[in-house]
């Protein structure tokens, strides 16, 4: 162990991959897990990131912090992973099937096609005043709402809204057209709004965070 350490100290000063791993392993894991939502995939991505960093040690010229550099490598690994998981160009039948959302706009009266009163967006203001936003708790609810979507649609939403990729970048990664992409984003927003309203914004035991 110490001998390996000294090899690294000789190779290039203060860039010991095991030290990086101690410092940033958990951070990178949390970063990956938030995006791919799957423990073993996130672990694999972290490992790949450090191995890639190891073979590119010399390309790290201290231009950015080690953390930023490693996060940049991880980011690319995540999008590669999304791309590999996306085997089919265009939308699958499951992805384009919006029938699970029809009931939101079904009405018995002459206003069929407008929001059904039972599912129309509720007023969030009264509810959300109660809570002092617990970021971690929100993350958990958001993650579980994402898993209610087909995987690629959830991945598209993560790239768009969490990471701020452009539509062109997302279409390339997932091999889809602009129209496919718009359909995915519409479905993701419709689904997530509904899910977050029920499980977060208007959830019955909203003050479980502990502040009265």
């Amino acid at each position, binding site marked *: 162990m110490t001998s390996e350490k000294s090899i690294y100290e000789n190779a290039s000063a203060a860039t010991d991959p*095991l030290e990086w791993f101690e410092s940033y392993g958990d951070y990178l894991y949390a970063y990956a897990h938030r995006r791919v939502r799957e423990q073993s995939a996130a672990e694999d991505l972290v490992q790949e990131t450090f191995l890639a960093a190891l073979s590119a040690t010399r390309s790290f010229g201290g231009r950015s912090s080690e953390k930023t550099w490693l996060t940049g490598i991880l980011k690319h690994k995540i999008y590669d992973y999304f791309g590999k998981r996306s085997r089919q160009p265009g939308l699958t039948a499951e992805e384009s099937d919006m029938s699970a959302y029809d009931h939101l706009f079904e009405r018995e009266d002459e206003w069929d*096609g407008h929001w059904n009163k039972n599912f129309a967006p509720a007023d969030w203001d009264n509810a959300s005043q109660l809570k002092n936003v617990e970021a971690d708790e929100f993350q958990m609810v958001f993650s579980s709402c994402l898993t209610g979507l087909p995987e690629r649609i959830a991945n598209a939403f993560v790239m768009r809204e969490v990471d701020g990729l452009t539509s062109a970048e997302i279409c390339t990664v997932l091999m889809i057209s602009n129209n496919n992409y718009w359909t995915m984003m519409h479905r993701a927003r*419709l689904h997530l709004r509904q899910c977050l309203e029920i499980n977060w914004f208007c959830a019955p035991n909203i003050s479980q965070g502990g502040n009265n």
Partner: protein
Amino acid sequence: MEKPGIYQRLKLQLIFFLARKIPPCNLMVPLMSEARERPLTLREKITLKLHFFTCVACRRYVEQIEKISRMVKPKAEQEVPEKLSVEARDRIRAAIEASAQHKN
């Protein structure tokens, strides 16, 4: 106990009239998402504006998808709530060490 004024009643009439003329919510909601992805045509913009005038639920919908968009953005330097498991930690350390030896 005031009766609604003349303007109030006219506005209501106008809303009902418009609501029957323009496309219903289920056709407008996809456009509300697309508005965040591409520039809308003038016609789409006008239809949306008219629809919002008549529909409080859709006004909320747009506000709420914006709010969600803001809330899912990563906050700078967030505390790390999740940690690697002991097994994953050992496995990755071993892989780094193996790879480091191989390299040298």
